[in-house]
């Protein structure tokens, strides 16, 4: 069993300037030094961690990352109190904040004085302080593969809806990943607040109306609401557009507008800081076969995902509606002329897509921060997966997303962690060059 070692690392915010020369000559600076102890207990600089500095009015006056010595330096205009904020996403893998809610610290900058403040950081293995290539070992490959399969499963579950919507309507929905964010934030909302969160009069009602419920129930609520959200989007926006014969290009641009609107609505409602579910946040990982360490929540989420995916597969293969979905994706006109109610099936695809995306988004929130910005990061990955597998094919979407998940995680063997998504996107571009129809797609006419 892998024990999680906690390392407390101090971040010193020191003020330079004003000691030897007058402050006006050199100017005040804010300095942050970030170090983590490695397995031998030696201090290693943590490189490439992004900090931003704001003045008391909350205006950002600068940002930057720690350099090779783990140091971030910034000139500030005058003495005073500054707020130093760490970007937790820029921390290398295995290193995280002990108190994830506390991403900002005050730094008092006196003329000629020195102030410091602390960010407590924990390090999972005590290693991998620098980003990326810290050697290829069997254990590391196994661990990254497991992480990759996990990511791929969650992405795949969300992407099936995207692929089916494309298959049945021809529309590539850029708003699909916002349905993932919707699910994640809805789960978070019911996990913490319940409906009383915005309907104050319900405060005395039992959960989930008056207060938060266990994440498991919150997830169930969010899946139902995700389906409802998909229904709503189709009923209020896309079905009318289809009826009016709005071109697919126009609909595509509309999905972009919708995505931007939803994304910033989420930011407006939930704020920019990272959040975490109320339960299961600090589970320690178990090691399996001496190779792979996974938390219980990861395993359960992966199990549920596989069950849902098998269920979806059976649904598509065996039920009338599932067959109708595939028939429409295969040849819409033929399906329609053989008596399938195309509009009803499309509506169902949106509902199912919304529910699956909600579940996928909620699960992604288990291992990442619950954040408004999830949607855009995942959008490009699910596009990569769906394109790789073949647009319009449900199983292709799954295979493609698994490959993308594996690719993203395994690429960190060779490239810095901050570039891990770049690899997946590059692969997508290369795939389009050699096999544009994807792995399971049918070749289209190439002009």
């Amino acid at each position, binding site marked *: 069993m892998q024990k999680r070692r906690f390392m407390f690392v101090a971040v010193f915010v020191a003020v330079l300037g004003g000691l030897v020369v007058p402050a006006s000559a050199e100017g005040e600076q804010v300095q942050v030094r970030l170090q983590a102890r490695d397995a031998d207990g030696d201090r290693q600089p943590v490189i490439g961690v992004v900090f931003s500095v704001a003045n008391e009015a909350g205006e950002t006056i600068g940002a930057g990352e720690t350099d090779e010595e783990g140091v971030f330096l910034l000139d500030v205009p005058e003495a005073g109190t500054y707020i130093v904020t760490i970007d937790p996403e820029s921390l290398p893998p295995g290193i995280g904040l002990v108190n994830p809610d506390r991403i900002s610290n005050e730094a008092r900058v006196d003329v000629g004085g020195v102030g410091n403040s602390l960010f407590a950081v924990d390090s999972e293995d005590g290693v991998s302080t620098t980003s990326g290539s810290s050697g290829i070992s069997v254990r590391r490959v196994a661990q990254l593969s497991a992480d990759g399969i996990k990511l791929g499963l969650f992405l795949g579950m969300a992407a099936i809806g995207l692929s089916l919507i494309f298959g049945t309507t021809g529309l590539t929905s850029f708003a699909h990943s916002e349905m993932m964010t919707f699910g994640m934030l809805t789960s978070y909302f019911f996990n913490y607040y319940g409906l009383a969160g915005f309907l104050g009069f319900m405060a005395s009602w039992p959960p989930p109306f008056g207060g938060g419920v266990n994440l498991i129930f919150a997830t169930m609520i969010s899946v139902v609401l995700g389906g409802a959200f998909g229904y709503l989007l189709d009923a209020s926006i896309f079905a009318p557009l289809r009826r009016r014969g*709005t071109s697919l290009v*126009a609909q595509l641009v509309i999905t972009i507008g*919708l995505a931007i609107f939803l994304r910033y609505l989420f930011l407006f409602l939930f704020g920019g800081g990272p959040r975490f579910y109320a339960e299961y946040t600090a589970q320690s990982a178990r090691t399996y076969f001496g190779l792979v360490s996974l938390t219980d929540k990861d395993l359960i989420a992966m199990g549920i995902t596989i069950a849902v995916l098998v269920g979806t597969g059976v649904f598509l293969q065996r039920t009338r509606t599932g067959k109708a979905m595939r028939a429409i994706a295969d040849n819409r006109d033929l399906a329609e002329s053989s008596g399938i109610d195309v509009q009803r099936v499309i509506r169902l695809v949106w509902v199912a897509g919304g529910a699956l995306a909600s579940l996928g988004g909620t699960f992604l929130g288990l291992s990442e921060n619950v954040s408004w910005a999830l949607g855009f990061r995942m959008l490009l990955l699910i596009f990569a997966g769906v394109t790789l597998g073949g647009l319009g094919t449900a199983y292709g979407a799954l295979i493609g997303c698994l490959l993308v998940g594996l690719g993203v995680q395994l690429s960190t063997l060779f490239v*810095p962690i901050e*570039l891990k998504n*770049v690899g997946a*996107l590059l692969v*997508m*571009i290369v795939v389009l060059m050699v096999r544009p129809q994807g792995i399971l797609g049918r070749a289209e006419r190439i*002009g």
Partner: protein
Amino acid sequence: MVGLTSIVALDMGSVLSASLTQAFGPQAVVFALAAIGLNIHFGYAGLLNFGAIGFLAVGAYGTAIGILSLGLPSGIAILLGLFFALVLGLVLGLPTLRLRADYLAIVTIAAAEIIRLLARSTALRGVTRGAEGLNEWAGGLQSLNPWNGDTVSMGPFTYRGNQVAVVVFGWIAVAIVTYGVYLIMKSPWGRVLKAIREDEDAVRALGKNAYAFKMQALLLGGVIMGFAGFIGAFTNSTVQPDVYVPPITFFMWTALILGGAARVASPVVGAIIFWFLITFFEAFLGDLVADGTIPSTILAPTEVSLVRFLLVGLMLMGLMAFRPQGIFGNREEMALDAR
């Protein structure tokens, strides 16, 4: 009652002045140029470029790197930036232009994000200086600024320092480019391009190489966007990766569609109207929040800047659904479809 009216009038005066300044300011110049490029892509050729911001980024980085890392003279460095934009267009067009229209959309949006992530990565820190970006590289060009960094006020317009030069020379450049696009689109080449947008198969049946035409359009628009990127970065003499985030691409789309795609002057008009609307709305809302008409529990002062994103999302949806031809466009020209 009289007092109230005068206060509102006073507020509106400064709001209007700020909005007009923005509507003809450096941002509007950048957007006008970018929207002209986008108009060639989307309006004339029907190409869905969702990564316009990537072209601006390479144009800006190319120039700054040319000056800082390679020590090129400013003029050559600008050409280097444009060359980068050309190469980006080639790389994006080669795999996608033979495919369905939405593949280009996916690939361009991904490419723009790749560029941003690479630019802010530690791996390329030596060249791009990570998240801080490249600063203080435009000194050589700035020294040519005849206004020498003074603040110039004229009527409702107030511009500071480099902004004056950017506004004056930028709008001249916009006029030249617009006239160039007008000539190109009137030429046989432009007519073939529009025909491809309408019915690619028909054009191919007539023996035209549709792929080559689309590629040329992608490159031409891309280079104009690269130039827009240079101007945007020159205004503050700084290139920072996180300026080039995907939503800005769709700000440009909104500006284009607002004016009406496939018309020569409409991207320019669209950019002006876009910035007027955004600034006006934000300043007005900011005033309402500041004097407490809108309680800060509903909209905190720091959240006012979010409103533009919501607004852009709504505008994009509304325009495409109800008025895809924008203010000046021709509805028939905008009846495009993905293959």
